[in-house]
């Protein structure tokens, strides 16, 4: 136990949101600054609001005169281990141990903590490490340079003759030492040193090793505070119900019975929702059940999944396509064509949506887990009529994000209710509310095609994607000049394979107003990797080729992706004999700047039940930062994707989502979990993303395995067992 002490009673103190006024002071605002390791406007105010540390050379490093070393995390922690990864980058160059630091949530500020790739302080799209790999190391190196220069000047020696171990500066020839704390005040007065030299990969002490998560201990002990755990003096607890129909409103409310329930203190209403406020959640829930509510169901009152699917099919057939990418032209030959369809999905984060808000005449304070802190602040300002500098967000740990907390609806709603309440109000959605008011992953209806050469390899690839646009709703300015949603063609327009001619296009088909579509872990890659890798598997089987050998030929110009394919095949034992109704599937791709190959082995019962036997994933995510969390993200991410492919579909009747809880929106469980082996390529390339990679590659590997086991090609998700039952058996 010496290496793994439970630190009972020690809690990672998370500050953040102490004051956020500095975010909004710069007027006129310069173009987004994004994370920089250097000192910039706004740093001084940020540091002042963060306990006025003796040494704060940039937005990320704080060293107090007491010796405390605090690192400020630009991204939010939702399970992906970014706090640990970011600390490794900073600590590597700062030359401190991970056990010597304290972690802080960054306050909301696009200027100080904005990500290049997502253009703002946004945690998503598997961009965090890609956006900060150089910048956070530089931030640590700049801090180290300044601290060492103070000691060197004091000793009248060359800084280069000093070395740092665990935050102590040594001058070995003279045997002198100074701790960072002893030079922090003097270093805090020095100007930015400009460019600094970073360690060569061979010198890394932390990067590339499996490091224990910094947040494990608190989470194991039940000490971590998530948004739902916030407690404030005078706080009341509410649960909410919004109109079940997309776009509907509240018509009439009788709360007489509700107000007689002990513990209920208030019933609040806004345009499309009602909140019952109580001294505890149960009383609020009982009060909600006792409400007599009449809704105006609005224009979507009769909406069904079938109507949505029919509309999408019509656009696929007749809609005007926007060109994504075109290369050469279609050669003569048989056109092989297939139609693939994907369902809507809910996120169902383990922590139901919640937010705690206190609105007064001068201030709006928010406690919430969010992937978009600056959007939360901006919206709250609009909703309350307060100035942005009067809005304070206290970021919290997220009990899962998966893209759901890239939306602000649940915080906006809590702000609207808290404006009426005026006391501190914690709004907790029931699981039923959480699923019925998800902002869903959109459905897709794609037609994909190929022309093969004489040897059975594609010389033409065609892909006509049809869907609503997430990007067009979430950030309309992010669409390309021709209106194209790049996310809709991600991983289809840029194949890893050598195919000389291709055309990838997208037909936009908007959902009815009120039915919002959102980001879902894996995003565009999740959608297109299923379709492309299933279809390419079809092509391989059509030519009676081994799907691995066939893919290898198409990867002839792509050694990095060939390497993950070969690694996975070797570890899986690809090609070794299997019993009847057992099959192996392969899928590969290049999502989020990472190369990945997944292999899944399944057994399909005579009744059509699919049992996962084992999975092997090989991944080249460029230079690996924390191999422990890479393994964990791939394992969990793959199972997350398999869970959805096996079981999940959101359907709509009478304008409302029909699923409501884990009894009818099923999740993969322990008894269904196979062994998942992860093999990481020791790469020196630029880092790729990791949090969504396993999820995005899961479904095609599964569907291809099911084909190998049964001969049934699944072109729709989720998997329907009745299609897989053997003749004479009932599913």
């Amino acid at each position, binding site marked *: 136990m010496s*290496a*793994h*002490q*439970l*630190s009972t*009673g*020690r*809690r*990672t*103190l998370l500050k953040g949101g102490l004051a956020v006024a500095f975010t909004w002071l710069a007027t006129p605002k310069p173009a987004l600054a994004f994370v920089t390791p250097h000192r910039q406007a706004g740093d001084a105010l940020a540091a002042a609001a963060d306990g006025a540390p003796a040494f704060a050379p940039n937005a990320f490093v704080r060293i107090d005169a007491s010796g405390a070393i605090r690192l400020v995390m630009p991204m939010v922690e*939702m*399970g992906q281990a970014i706090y640990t990864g970011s600390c490794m980058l900073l600590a590597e160059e700062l030359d401190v*141990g991970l*056990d010597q*630091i*304290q972690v802080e949530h960054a306050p909301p500020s696009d200027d100080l903590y904005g990500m290049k790739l997502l253009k703002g302080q946004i945690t998503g799209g598997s961009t965090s490490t890609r956006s900060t790999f150089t910048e956070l190391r530089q931030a640590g190196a700049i801090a180290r340079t300044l601290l060492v220069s103070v000691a060197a000047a004091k000793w009248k020696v060359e800084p280069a003759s000093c070395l740092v171990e665990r935050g102590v500066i040594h001058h070995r020839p003279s045997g002198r030492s100074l701790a960072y704390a002893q030079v922090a005040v003097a270093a805090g007065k020095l100007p930015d040193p400009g460019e600094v030299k970073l360690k060569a990969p061979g010198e890394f002490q932390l990067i590339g090793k*499996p*490091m*224990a998560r*910094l*947040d*494990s*201990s608190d989470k*194991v*002990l*039940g*000490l971590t505070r*998530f948004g*739902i755990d916030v*407690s404030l003096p005078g706080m009341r607890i509410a649960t909410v119900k919004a109109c079940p129909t997309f776009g509907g409103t509240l018509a009439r409310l009788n709360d007489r019975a509700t107000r007689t329930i002990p*513990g209920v203190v208030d019933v609040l209403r806004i345009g499309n929702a009602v909140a019952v406020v109580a001294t*505890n*959640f*149960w009383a609020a829930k009982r009060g909600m059940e006792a409400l007599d509510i009449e809704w105006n169901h609005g224009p979507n009152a009769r909406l069904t999944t079938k109507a949505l699917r029919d509309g999408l099919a019509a656009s696929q057939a007749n809609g005007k396509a926007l060109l994504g990418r075109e290369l050469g032209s279609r050669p003569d030959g048989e056109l092989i064509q297939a139609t693939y369809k994907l369902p809507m999905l809910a996120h169902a*984060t*383990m*922590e139901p949506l919640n937010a705690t808000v206190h609105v007064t005449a001068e201030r709006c304070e928010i406690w919430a887990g969010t992937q978009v802190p600056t959007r939360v602040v901006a919206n709250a300002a609009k909703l309350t009529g307060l100035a942005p500098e009067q809005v304070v967000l206290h970021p919290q*740990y*997220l*009990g*899962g994000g998966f893209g759901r907390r890239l939306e602000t609806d649940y915080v906006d709603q809590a702000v609207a209710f808290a404006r009426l309440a005026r006391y501190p109000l914690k709004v907790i959605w029931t*699981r039923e509310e959480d699923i019925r008011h998800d902002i869903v992953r959109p459905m897709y209806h794609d037609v994909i095609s190929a022309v093969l050469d004489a040897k059975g390899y594609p010389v033409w690839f065609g892909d006509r994607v049809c869907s609503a646009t997430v990007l067009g709703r979430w950030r309309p300015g992010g669409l390309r000049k021709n209106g194209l949603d790049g996310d809709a063609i991600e991983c289809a327009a840029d194949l890893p394979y050598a195919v000389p001619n291709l055309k990838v296009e997208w037909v936009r088909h908007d959902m009815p107003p009120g039915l919002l579509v959102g980001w879902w872990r894996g995003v565009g890659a999740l959608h297109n990797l299923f379709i492309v890798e299933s279809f390419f598997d079809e092509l391989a089987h059509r030519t009676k080729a081994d799907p691995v050998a066939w893919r290898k030929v198409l990867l002839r110009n792509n050694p990095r992706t060939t390497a993950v394919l070969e690694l996975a095949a070797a570890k899986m034992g690809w090609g070794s004999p299997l019993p009847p109704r057992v099959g192996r599937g392969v899928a590969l791709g290049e999502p989020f700047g990472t190369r990945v190959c997944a292999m899944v082995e399944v057994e399909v019962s005579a009744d059509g039940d699919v049992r996962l036997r084992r999975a092997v994933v090989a991944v080249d995510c460029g230079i690996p930062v924390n*191999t*422990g969390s890479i*393994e*964990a993200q791939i*394992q*969990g991410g793959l*199972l*997350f994707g398999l*869970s959805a492919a096996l079981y999940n579909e959101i359907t709509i009747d009478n304008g409302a989502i029909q699923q409501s*809880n*884990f*009894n009818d929106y099923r*999740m*993969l*469980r*322990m*008894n269904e*979990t196979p062994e998942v082996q992860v093999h990481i390529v020791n790469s020196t390339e630029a880092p790729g993303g990791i949090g969504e990679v396993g999820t995005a590659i899961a479904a095609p590997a599964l569907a291809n395995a099911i084909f190998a086991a049964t001969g049934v090609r699944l072109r729709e998700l989720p998997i329907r067992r009745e299609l897989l039952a053997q003749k004479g058996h009932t599913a």
Partner: protein
Amino acid sequence: MSFTIKVNGRPHVVDIAGDTPLLWVIRDVIGMTGTKFGCGIAQCGACTVHLDGAPVRSCVLPVSAVGNREVTTIEAVGETDSGKRIQEAWLAVDVVQCGYCQSGQIMSAAALLQRNPAPSDADIDAAMSGNICRCATYVRIRAAIKQAASGKIVVTQAIPVTAIGGRK
């Protein structure tokens, strides 16, 4: 109604409707937040606590049904031998991701180890399948339970750094 319930060895007098699930008494009345709300219908296990050492879903257990039985939550499970071993193994294997379901996972695993010191894969399946983890940390949960049971390191990789608590 007034009830006296014993949580982690301490009696608490709570004045609340008798149908209030134990979960909300623990969270909203007593103010201990380690036990989590996930579904409200005993489908996900995030709310798992021990009642006289047996795992129960506190989101569907009315406070009126607790009686004299001892309630143990994540905050005190480390004081039992099986709970301590499970928590240590959880840390050694670095199981957690978002962490939200992990209190419930640990409570189920500690109860398993308490009644079955050497659980098989099938035993682990039976005891743990009531606990959903959306991050799907199941592979490491299984490894951690085996490590806690055997006392042998079954971690697939070295994890060289002590976990950090941070400042008090």
